[in-house]
Structures are given as C-alpha cells and as structure tokens.
C-alpha cells in the first residue's frame, strides 16, 4: 500500500493522471474548452515520450476526453502502442481506448492483427480476456478473417472465462466474416452443452442472435434447445431460449404444440416476472402460429390473458412504482399481440384497458390506445370513442392529445369504416375534434370529412349542413394564432359545401361566409378552394334563383361576387389570384348576360358538373404496362452529355439561338401528335377507370346498392338536421347521436324479434334459438346508413403489392447459411475445403505433406480473390462454391472407400501419404508433389515454415507479377466451369496442366526458395498473418506441430532474470480412432524447465486438456521457464496417449525434440530510428557480422524473411540497405544493418550479448543457406 502511494506521487511528478484531469475540468467550468485544449497539448507531449507508463496514462485521459465528445482518432497509433505493452495494466488501458474509438475505417487497426493474436494466445487469461473484449468492439472483416481460427481455438480453452468470451465474440466474427459460420458452427453447438453455465449462456446468446435473423436454418437445433429449456435453471438462458422458440414456432407449428405444455408449467411455477412474461409472449406466438381451430388451446389463451391481467392491474407493494409501471406496459404490449388472433378473449378485459387510459404514464396510455384500436366492434365503438373524447378534453400535453386524435380517427376509419353504424355521429365527432386547440392534425380531420362526404352518399345532406355551420363560424377556428393547424378543416368544409351545394339550406348565407374579407388571412391553398367553391355555390344559387320571376336576387348574388372577388385577385398567392381573376371575369360576363335577361344558369352549372371518384393510393403505380411499350426506351435520342451541360446556362444567358433538336421534333410530329391525341381520347372514353366528367362514372353510384332505402327518414324526424349554431362550449352533439343510435338499435332489435317470432311460428326449427339466446351479436346491428363505401379504384390486372423487401444492406443476410447438412455430418468432415477458416502457415506445412489438402489451399486462393471482388460477386461465388462443393462431396463419397483402404496401408508404413484426391481437380494437382515423401516434406516444413500458398498468390503481385495472377484467373475460371457442369472438359484439362505448374512452383516455394508472402511487406503495409509452425513429431496416430516460441511473458516476473517462453503445440489426430488421456512431458534441463502445476513433481507429465476425435486437431500451450537465453536449447520429450477403438484401447507413445532457437527468444519490437541511432551510439553493444553469398531474392523479400523468421522489425530502409531491430525476452537489444549488392548480403549486427548475437546470426545464415 505504501508503495502504491509512493508510486502515485511519483507519477504525479511528471504528469497529470485521469483524476487530475477530471478535477481540473471540474475546476474550470467557465473555460472548459480552453482548459481541455491545453490538456490535449500536454497529452500530445506525453505521447511523444518513450516511457510506456506515461503513454498509457495519456491514453487513459484521452479515453475520458473521447467520452466528452473530443475526437481522439489522431492518437490511434499511440493507442496501438499501449495495447502492445506487455504489462496488463497498460494493455487494458490500450484496449479500452481502442474499443472506444476504433472503427472499421481506422487504418492502424491493420497493425494490430499480430498483437491481438499474441494476446489471444497469452498464457494469462486476463490478457486474452482483455483482447477479446476489445476486439468485440472494433472487429473488422479483415481482423475477423485473420483471427477467426485463433478465436475458434479459444472456444475450447481450459478456462471457462476465456471460453465464454470466445464464444460470444464469434457472433461478431460471423457478422464481419460470414464464411466463418459454417466451420465454426459445430463447435459453437458443442458449447451449448458446456459444463460451465456462463459458456452455455454465451452460446445460447450467440445462437439466438443468429437464429433471430434467419430462424429457418436453426430449426434443427430445436430438440437441443428443448432439452436445455427443461433442464436449465438459469433464468437468463431460459429467457433467451424461450425468445428463440418464439421466433421458431411460426416456421414449425409442430414445435409449438410441444412447447405449450412446458411453457404453461413454467408460467405456473416461475416467480421471475421477466421469465413469466417471455413465456407468455412465446405461448402467444405459438398460438398465433397454430391454426385458430384448436379448441383445446383456449385454456392457454385464457391463462395468458389472465396472467397478463395480473401484470397489468397488480401493483406489487415491494416493487418500485416504476417497475410496476413496466409490468403494466409489457402486459399491454403482450395483450396487443393476442388481440390480433384472439380478439374475443381480450375484449372481455375492456374495462381494464380503458382504466389504463387514465394512467399517468404516457407510454402506458399509448399502449392502451393501441389495444383499443383492435378492440372496437360495431357495438362498442361509440362508447369507446366517447371515452376517448373525454380524454381529449382532459389531455393537456399536445403530443398526447394529437396521438389521441389520430387514434380516434384511426379507430373509426379502420377497414373502410367497418364499425361505424351512424355516420351522423361520426361527422359530429369530427366537428367536435375541430375544437382542439393547437393540434397539428387539422389535415387529418379534413381528409376524413372529405372522405366520408364523398364516399357515403347518404350523409351528404347532413355533412353539408355541418360544414356550412363550420364556415359560418370560421372566425372561431382562425381567431387564434395557435389554431393554425386546425384551419385545414376549412379546406374540407369549403369544398364539401361547394361540391354538394345542392344540399345547402341557405346557400346565399354560405356564399357570403366564404367571401368574407377575413378569409384572406387563411393559407393560400385554402383560399384557392374557397374561391373555386364560391363559384360552384354561385352556380347553384343562380340556378335556384333563375326560376323566380324576380331577377334582382340573382343579380344581387352576382354583384356580391363582383364586390368581393377583387380581394382575392390581389392575393399574393398565385393560385388564388389566378382562380379569382378568372372567376371574376366569368361573373362579370354572367352579369352582363343577366342584365339582358338571358338564362345562363344551366351553362354555368355545366362548368362544375360531374363527380369525382376516389382512387386507390397506388392505382397509378399498378397500371400494367401495355404490351409493346418500353418505358426505358428513349422517345427522343437524348442530347449528348456535353450539349446538355451547355444548354442550361445558354438558355438563360445566351441570345435567342435557334434551338436544336427538341422543337424540331414537335414540329415534325405535329400530325402524329394529333393522331395520338385522338387515339388517347378514344381510349379514355372506353376506359372505365379514367376519371372523366361523363355520366358513366355516376352510374357507379347509382348502381351501388342501398342508397335509396336508408332509414335516414327516422332520424330526420327526431333530430333537427338544421344543426344548431356551431357551439364550442355546448353539449357535444355526438352524445345526442349516441343516444339516438341506442334507441334506434333497440327499435331494430324489437322489430327483429317480432319478425323472428313470426318466423319461428312459421318454421318451428331450432335455429332461431341461437339468435335469441346469445347476447346481441355483431351482425344484429344494422347500420343507420347503408354505407355506400365506394371502393377505391384500381386498374385491371393490378398486382398485389409486394413492396416489403428485405433491406439488401442488412449484414445478417450474409449469415443466412444453411447449417443443416453440416450438423448431420458433424464429426466427419462436414465442411467443404473451400470453407475452412484461413489459418496461419502451419496449415501450409500440412498442405505440403498431404497433397489431398492441396485443394484446401487452392480454394483458399479463390477465396482470397473473392475478397477483393465486390460483395455481390462474393455472394454469387458462394453459390458457385456450394454447387462445387456438392459435386465434390459426391465424388468424395465414392472415393472415400478407396481412400480408406489405401490410407490404411500408408499409415502402417508410416511413410507416404499418397495422393488421395478429393476431387479430380485436386488429385491431378496433387500428382506432382507426391515425389516428396511425407518425411521429406516434414523436414522441409520444419526447416522453413512454409508460407501459405494462398497468401503467396494472393498478396505477392510484385514479386511474381505474372504467375500468381494467372492462378487467380484460372481459379475463378475453374469455378465458373464447375458451374457449367464441366461442359468443356478439354479446356479444363489444359487448365489443370497449368495448375500443376503453379503447384509445383508453390511447392518449391515452400521448399525454401523464397518466402513470397513477405514480399508485400513494404514499410507501411502490415504483415500478412503468418507464423512459424513446424512439425515436431508424428506417427501414424498423431502429428504434433510446434510454433516457434515467440510468446513471451514476464507478467508474473518474480524470477529476477528469468523469462518464460510459451510453446503452442497443435495436436492432430490422423487415425480413425479416438485419442485420449494425452500427457505431454519434457525432460527438463538445467536451463529450461517445463512449468508444471503446483504440487506436481519435476518429472510428471502435463495432461493435455482435450481429447481428439478422429481427424480433429487442437492446440495446447505449454510454458517453459528459461534461465539463460543466449544459447539454443533442445529438449527431449514424450507424448503418451491412449488410442481408443470401438473394441480396444492401446497405450501409445511419441518421442519428440523441442528445439528452442535463439530466434525464438526474440520479440518483434518496433523501434524508432532516433532511438535506434541512440542505441547504436551508446557503445554498449558488441559488434559482429556475417556475409551471405548467392542470395537470389528481392531485397524486400529478404527483409521480410528476416522479420518473419527471426522476429525483427525494420527500423529504416534506404535503397538496398536496412536497419533492423529486435529485443530478446531478457531485454537484450539486437540491431542489424543489412546491405545487399548483387547476390551478396552482408549483415552487420550489434548486440549487448555476443553469444546470443552469434547464435542468431548463425540461424539467419542457415535460413538463407537453404535458399
């Protein structure tokens, strides 16, 4: 503790820490921005220092500033530096900063690949954890591709802490790199049954996320999840599973049936509200998916509704009120789901839902409103709307009131006014709604008024009367500035009064109202309607007055128009002005005629004859394109690009130039146009869907049934249709209609009963009973108006709408991958070779060894090229691959028998792993390299970790510009050909020959000619993923691959000068039996010791933490402690294991030698050139040099090879000279100066430890001597 304090104060000596920064910001409230900018300057200074602690501190502060909204992306590189610190403390700071501010377009992210890989395989679980957490936030497609395999390995880590993180992050990897889903899926599925609940939960989480987007691919997992659901006690997992089932049931109703029982059990038993709620939700989903004709499920519905009711009404005293509110909210939400399929069972809880309208929580009220929408029936509509109207009065906040208003209109107008039995009531409701102050939804009310008035013929008389009153009282609507929204209603009112003016009681009065000077204050579009409809009114009045003997009345009306219209002629609104001046002239002309006693009313009225039909909103779109009409074809050839560019400015500025093509065209086609016009007119006349003022459209109305025989008469008697003056404070009119409606219904009912009695007397059948016994059913209510709802017009042949397409940019679309056949075959070789995850170079060694897998690399090449092509292409390719894979699989099956026989012999011989092709293609390819025996290949691989051939061809265009390209194109071609089902066999043969050639080339590559993939390593480009796996030992059962021990950790550094080296060994099961109880043991030397768990003796073996099914490989890490690192070390070791067959099990043993080169003690460490120069100048370093003769490779290849093989980094490169740096795990500096001239490469090296240097140089020499 004391130390910590001391350290804290020391830290403070030279920099502000996060706390100081926060405190400083709090103390500079007035000039915060200024203070922070000085802080950022300080941070920039700190970042320039070499001390990683200072840097980490600076980065930590930046993370805080990022939260405050400051862009810190400029420090991205420093963040990477801190991330790569070996100290956990700093590493964590670095990763946190990265997770907060890195994203796909951060370019330094490319530099992190190797660092992250290193951290992922760190023996310290928290290093791995921190790396995984960070990666989950900034994973990019590239990172995902490069690290997928490492993360896959971590999914089987011994520590559950790592396992669960690795499992979870796989989802992110899938999203970024969908190709990884298939290979990773079996293991992910395995994790569903992990002993650790955390891992299990993570796996469930990931699969649920995947399944949510593409549920059909995961149906086959249902039994497994079912088992989990019945066995798991973790509510979190249960919730996820149950939610998943909710997504699956719509696809598989049988699943639903099975689910009902366990879910109901859970509902009864659980005390966790969250679980209960999800159960109810899923039961609802199940019930929706099942056909409604399942009587035995009514019990479940009842149970759900009942439980939901409890959620809604019960307020638990122990809970916070807000949580109770949450329950209520969710209850209503779930109710609305039930409502869709089982409205009856919800409708019985109307009381409860109406209660919720009084809730003080707005979101609850809104939910309740949603529910009401689905609950209305003919019977209760008026009641519900009445209740809502009360709320409208009470509601204060305008948003909620607006919401209420729209809901009322929605409820009433739903499915073509299905539930409205009395339109007079509805019109009066609408009129009442106009009293709302400050609503934004005036246009909504207006459009309802228009819609009803147009489509319900019988209501027009009433509607017109109401609208006239509205117009009369327009001052009440427009008086207030706040009422701007509502004056839209006047638009409707004016139009209705004008259009249906024949129904007006006192048209003159209305006309007067329309032409009041105050109208000029209304918005332009409303004025325009006013003017137009004033004209219509004028025509009606004219007609009615013309019959009279007294002509003065008519002339007075004209005079009124002439007096008032000039006001509108002066309007600033063009539309108003135009209409007004037009009509003014017309009226003036009419007046003239009137003075001559000419009867003109008929002609004037003809101006406005005809009716408008409602047209469906999409009608225009749905008009089918007539045959032979190509809409995309040009009618006139478009003017050329340059012309059109010039044209616009010219049109404005240039003098009247003779226009080019366009006018000419019209002139030429004048006759043609006339012809067309004629034809069009003809067509329109014949087309019933064209809106025109011919009597044919009116026929539609006349033919519609029921207009004549409407019981309007009854109501006319009881209600004065000359509606009382519009009265904003009086008794809402709609109430009167409610009463009336009830009376009417009772009357109707009574009549019906009478009739039925009669009927029953006539026919003594039992049918009548049903009607009588039940409560008043829906059908019994006859609407007051036969609603002549004119269905909207649609063109013939209109297609049903199919607009709802999935978003093509959805990342989850790429994850729609069929996983089923994968699972059936799990355990064997479920994956097409092309689908294997890209792995580091140790796989390449395998490639060499077993040519059968060459196809692997080959297809990986095509994958690489795919990467570069666009996404669409990639998807196409995937399909192709799938095709290809199918054909391959077929072949594979055939060949397998053959293969197993052959293999058996081979394995016994322990030598040649013959060219067992998986497809014709690959076997052909393989034929060439067979000359190398397995052993040879192995030694080659050991000496030179072969570069991944996929990368070789994919990323080394500058070294071998011709051939790799060739391979690529050949590859893509080949896949195309495959698709064409090998139509062109000849071509293919040729191709194969070529390919053979390539393969040979790659092969010799691996054999030590040159490490091509490093060729791309220029100064700034990141290294492609690679590593130094080499063969350790193998026998017929197992193969061990070892990675050069480049992992270093001094985290637990309690050994003063010792360090640890981590060796990862890949065990691959090569036989058909199960390998288990593997023990790894090494004979310790004085210098190096295998770290064994505490308590075990110095000669005990380490148990390998996994078992190997046939064909599976897995990776284990072993930690060695080194005393001295200046000499290479060799350790003898043995692996013992049990081979388990179906009937027998045998003990087997495999000896191996672990070779620790000096190189393996070096860590790639970046170094700045100035620091490098200082280091060289310091004079502490001993010098040594070496000359390599006959090196034939480009210089950058050479450098890359040194970097790659010997863990150096390039400090600076000038032409054919480069300085390189590396550091040993015990902090020895190793500096190289590499020069090349011709085929001679001279390396001058400096190091503070001459023995180490000598050994490293020897190793380098050896590397190149193999060239």
């Amino acid at each position: 503790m004391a130390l910590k304090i001391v350290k804290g104060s020391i830290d403070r000596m030279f920099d502000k820490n996060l706390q100081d920064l926060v405190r400083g910001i709090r103390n500079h409230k007035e000039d915060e921005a200024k203070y922070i900018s000085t802080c950022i300057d300080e941070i920039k200074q700190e970042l320039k220092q070499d001390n990683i602690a200072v840097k980490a501190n600076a980065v930590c502060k930046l993370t805080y500033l990022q939260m405050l909204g400051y862009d810190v992306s400029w420090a991205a590189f420093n963040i990477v530096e801190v991330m790569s610190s070996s100290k956990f403390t700093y590493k964590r700071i670095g990763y946190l900063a990265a997770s907060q501010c890195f994203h796909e377009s951060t370019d330094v992210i490319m530099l992190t690949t190797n660092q992250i890989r290193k951290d992922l395989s760190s023996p310290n679980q928290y290093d791995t954890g921190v790396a995984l957490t960070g990666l989950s936030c900034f994973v990019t497609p590239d990172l995902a591709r490069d690290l997928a395999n490492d993360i896959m390995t971590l999914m089987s880590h011994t520590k559950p802490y790592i396992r669960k993180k690795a499992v979870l992050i796989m989802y992110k990897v899938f999203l970024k790199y969908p190709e990884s889903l298939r290979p990773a899926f079996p293991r992910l599925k395995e994790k569903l049954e992990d002993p650790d609940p955390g891992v299990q939960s993570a796996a469930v989480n990931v699969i649920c996320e995947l399944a949510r987007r593409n549920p059909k691919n995961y149906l086959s997992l249902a039994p497994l999840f079912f088992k989990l659901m019945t066995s798991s006690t973790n509510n979190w997992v249960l919730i996820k599973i149950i939610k998943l089932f909710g997504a699956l049931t719509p696809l598989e109703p049988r699943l639903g049936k099975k689910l009902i029982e366990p879910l109901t059990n859970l509902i009864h038993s659980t005390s966790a509200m969250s679980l209960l709620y999800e159960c109810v939700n899923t039961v609802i989903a199940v019930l929706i998916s099942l056909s409604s004709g399942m009587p035995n499920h009514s019990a479940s519905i009842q149970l759900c509704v009942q439980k939901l009711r409890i959620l809604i009404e019960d307020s638990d005293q122990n809970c916070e009120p807000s949580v109770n509110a949450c329950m209520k909210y969710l209850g209503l939400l779930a109710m609305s789901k039930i409502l869709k399929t089982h409205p009856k069972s919800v409708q019985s809880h109307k009381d409860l839902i109406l209660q919720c309208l009084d809730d003080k929580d707005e979101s609850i009220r809104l939910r309740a409103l949603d529910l009401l929408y689905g609950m209305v029936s003919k019977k209760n509509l008026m009641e519900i709307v009445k209740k809502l109207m009360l709320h409208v009065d009470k509601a204060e906040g305008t948003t909620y009131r607006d919401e209420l208003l729209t809901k009322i209109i929605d409820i009433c107008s739903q499915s073509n006014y299905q539930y409205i039995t009395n339109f007079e009531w509805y019109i009066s409701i609408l009129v009442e709604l106009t009293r709302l102050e400050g609503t934004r939804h005036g246009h909504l009310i207006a459009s309802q008024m228009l819609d009803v008035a147009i489509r319900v013929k019988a209501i027009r008389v009433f509607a017109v009367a109401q609208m006239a009153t509205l117009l009369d009282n327009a001052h009440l609507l427009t008086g207030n500035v706040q009422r701007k929204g509502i004056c839209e209603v006047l638009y409707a009112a004016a139009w209705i009064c004008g259009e249906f003016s024949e129904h007006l009681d006192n048209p003159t009065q209305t006309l007067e109202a329309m032409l009041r000077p105050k109208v000029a204050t209304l918005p332009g579009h409303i004025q325009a309607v006013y003017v137009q409809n004033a004209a219509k009114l004028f025509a009606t009045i004219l007609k009615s007055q013309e019959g009279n003997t007294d002509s003065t009345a008519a002339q007075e009306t004209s005079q009124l128009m002439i007096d008032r219209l000039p006001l509108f002629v002066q309007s600033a609104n063009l539309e108003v002005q135009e209409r007004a001046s037009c009509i003014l002239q017309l009226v003036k002309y009419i007046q003239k005629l009137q003075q001559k006693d000419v009867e003109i009313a008929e002609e004037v009225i003809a101006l406005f004859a005809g009716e408008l039909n409602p047209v469906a909103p999409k009608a225009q779109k749905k008009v089918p394109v007539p045959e032979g009409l190509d809409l995309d074809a040009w009618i006139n050839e478009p003017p050329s690009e340059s012309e059109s560019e010039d044209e616009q400015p010219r049109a404005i500025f240039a003098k009247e130039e003779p226009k080019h093509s366009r006018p000419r065209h019209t002139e030429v086609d004048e006759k043609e146009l006339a012809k067309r016009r004629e034809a069009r007119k003809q067509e329109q006349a014949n087309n019933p869907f064209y809106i025109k003022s011919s009597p044919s459209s009116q026929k539609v109305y006349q033919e519609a049934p029921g207009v004549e025989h409407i019981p309007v008469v009854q109501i006319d008697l009881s209600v004065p249709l000359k509606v009382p003056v519009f009265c904003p404070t009086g008794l809402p009119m709609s109430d009167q209609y409610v009463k009336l409606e009830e009376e009417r219904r009772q009357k109707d009912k009574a009549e019906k009963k009478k009739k039925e009695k009669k009927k029953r007397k006539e026919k003594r059948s039992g049918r009548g009973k049903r009607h009588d016994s039940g409560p008043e059913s829906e059908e019994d209510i006859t609407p007051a108006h036969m609603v002549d709802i004119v269905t909207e017009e649609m063109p013939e042949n209109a297609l049903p709408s199919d607009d709802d397409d999935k978003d093509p940019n959805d990342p989850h679309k790429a994850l729609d991958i069929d996983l089923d056949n994968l699972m059936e075959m799990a355990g064997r070789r479920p994956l097409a070779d092309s689908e294997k995850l890209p792995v580091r170079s140790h796989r390449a060694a395998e490639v060499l060894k077993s040519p059968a897998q060459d196809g692997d690399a080959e297809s990986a090449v095509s994958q690489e090229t795919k990467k570069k092509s666009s996404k669409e292409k990639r998807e196409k390719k995937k399909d192709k691959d799938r095709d290809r894979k199918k054909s391959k699989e077929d072949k594979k099956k055939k060949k397998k028998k053959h293969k197993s026989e052959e293999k058996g012999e081979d394995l016994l011989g322990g030598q040649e792993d013959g060219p067992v092709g998986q497809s014709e293609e690959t076997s052909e390819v393989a034929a060439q390299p067979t000359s190398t025996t397995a052993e040879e290949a192995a030694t080659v691989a050991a000496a030179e970790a072969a570069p991944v051939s996929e990368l070789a061809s994919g990323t080394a265009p500058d070294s071998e510009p011709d051939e790799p390209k060739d391979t690529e194109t050949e590859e893509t071609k080949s896949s195309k050909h495959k698709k064409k089902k090998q139509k062109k066999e000849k071509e293919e043969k040729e191709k194969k020959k070529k390919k053979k050639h390539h393969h040979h080339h790659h092969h010799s590559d691996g054999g030590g000619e040159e490490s091509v993939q490093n060729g791309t390593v220029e100064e700034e480009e990141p290294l492609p993923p690679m590593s130094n796996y080499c063969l350790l030992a193998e026998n017929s059962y197992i193969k061990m691959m070892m990675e050069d021990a480049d992992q270093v950790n001094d985290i637990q550094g309690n050994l003063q000068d010792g360090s640890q080296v981590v060796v990862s060994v890949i065990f691959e099961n090569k036989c058909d039996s199960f390998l288990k109880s593997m023990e790894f043991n090494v004979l310790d030397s004085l210098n190096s010791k295998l770290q064994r768990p505490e308590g075990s003796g110095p000669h005990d073996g380490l148990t390998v933490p996994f078992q190997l099914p046939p064909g599976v490989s897995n990776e284990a890490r072993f930690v060695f402690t080194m005393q001295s690192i200046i000499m290479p070390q060799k350790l003898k070791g043995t692996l013992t294991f049990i081979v388990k067959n179906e009937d027998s099990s045998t003990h087997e043993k495999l000896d191996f030698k672990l070779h620790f080169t000096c190189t393996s003690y070096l860590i790639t460490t970046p170094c700045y050139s100035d620091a490098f120069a200082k280091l060289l100048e310091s004079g502490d370093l001993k010098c040594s040099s070496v000359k390599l003769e006959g090196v034939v490779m480009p210089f950058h290849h050479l450098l890359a090879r040194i970097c790659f093989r010997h863990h150096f980094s390039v400090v600076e490169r000038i032409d054919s000279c480069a300085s390189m740096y590396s550091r040993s795990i015990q902090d020895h500096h190793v500096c190289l100066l590499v020069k090349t001239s011709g085929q001679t490469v001279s390396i001058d090296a400096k190091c503070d430890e001459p023995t180490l240097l000598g050994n490293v140089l020897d190793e380098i020499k050896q590397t190149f001597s193999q060239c």
Partner: protein
Amino acid sequence: MIKAILIFNNHGKPRLSKFYEHYNEDIEQQIIRETFHLVSKRDENVCNFLEGGMLIGGSDYKLIYRHYATLYFVFCVDSSESELGILDLIQVFVETLDKCFENVCELDLIFHVDKVHNILAEMVMGGMVLETNMNEIITQVDAQNKMEKSEVRLTLPVHYFYLSVYQAGQVDTGRYCRSACSCRISCKEHEPPGNAQKHQHW
C-alpha cells in the same frame, strides 16, 4: 443486442458512454443529449421503457433506463433482449458497482470511469450480455485489479529511474509536485461534502 450503454447525471453530463456500434463523436454527444431529454422529462414512477424513433437504432430499439439518485443508467437494446431482463441487468450492474466501489456514488463514476468500463466489460461484451452473476463479475474484476497491483509494485524501479532523469532538470516538475502534495488519489473524503450525495437506493 445492446446497442449502447449510457450513464449520465441529472443534468445530462455523461459519466460513461459505451457504444457497441461506431458513431462519430458528435453524433455520440447528440445521442446522449437526446436520450437525456427523453428520459429526464419523465416522471419518477412511470415505466422504464421508452420507444420510438431516435437517432440510434430505429423502431426495433427501446431505451430501458433506471434512475438512481443523481444518475440515469440507460441501455439501448433491440427486440432480442428481454425488457425485464435488462432492467435486472441494470440492477446487477449498479449493485456490482456498489460492491466494487464500496458505497458507490456519482463521484466514483466521475473519477474512475476507466474502472467502471472494466466492470462493465465483464458484464457486457460487444453488445451481448456476458455474465449476469454478480459474484462471478466481482471475482474477475478483483483478480484483474490484483494483477494490476502486482505490476505496479514491479514497475516501481523503472519509475524511480525516470524520476532521477527528470530531476536532472529536463522537465519542470514543480507544478506537478505541488499538486501531488496538496491532494493524493481522489478519495471521496477530499471532495466537498455538497457533492457527496449518497444514493438512497443502495
């Protein structure tokens, strides 16, 4: 999936922001502001879910929040998460903070936002819930802190070295010395009592 986790105080000052999808800094601030406006105008006893289009997500997303004394904890989640489950998770988060900071208050979050991030990282990873068991979370957080402490002890000599370098006159250290003397690590006791409001619920 969880899209974002925000903590801000009653005045809308961000105390922690964790976005599991990338936005640039300006938009992040805008989201925080808007979320604050949405959440802060709600009554204390109303339900803890908020729907509706906002900058983040869209219609599939919900805001689930809880208000503790001076702080709002807001989770923005999509429909794959259980609403009540997330409410519980917020509770677990807060209780964990309480355990780790021993009677947590806003000041702890203000001065140790990095630690809060570390705790959160053990609960939620990349937008997915990693662990809901409080004890497990605390164990892991403690283990990591322990590791950090052991490293601090080890690095001491290095710092010592640097100190001597700096004292040789390369950098003016006076300013920092003074501040180092006046207050050590930001202990709660050193803060003005007015700020030290403890949360009632905990």
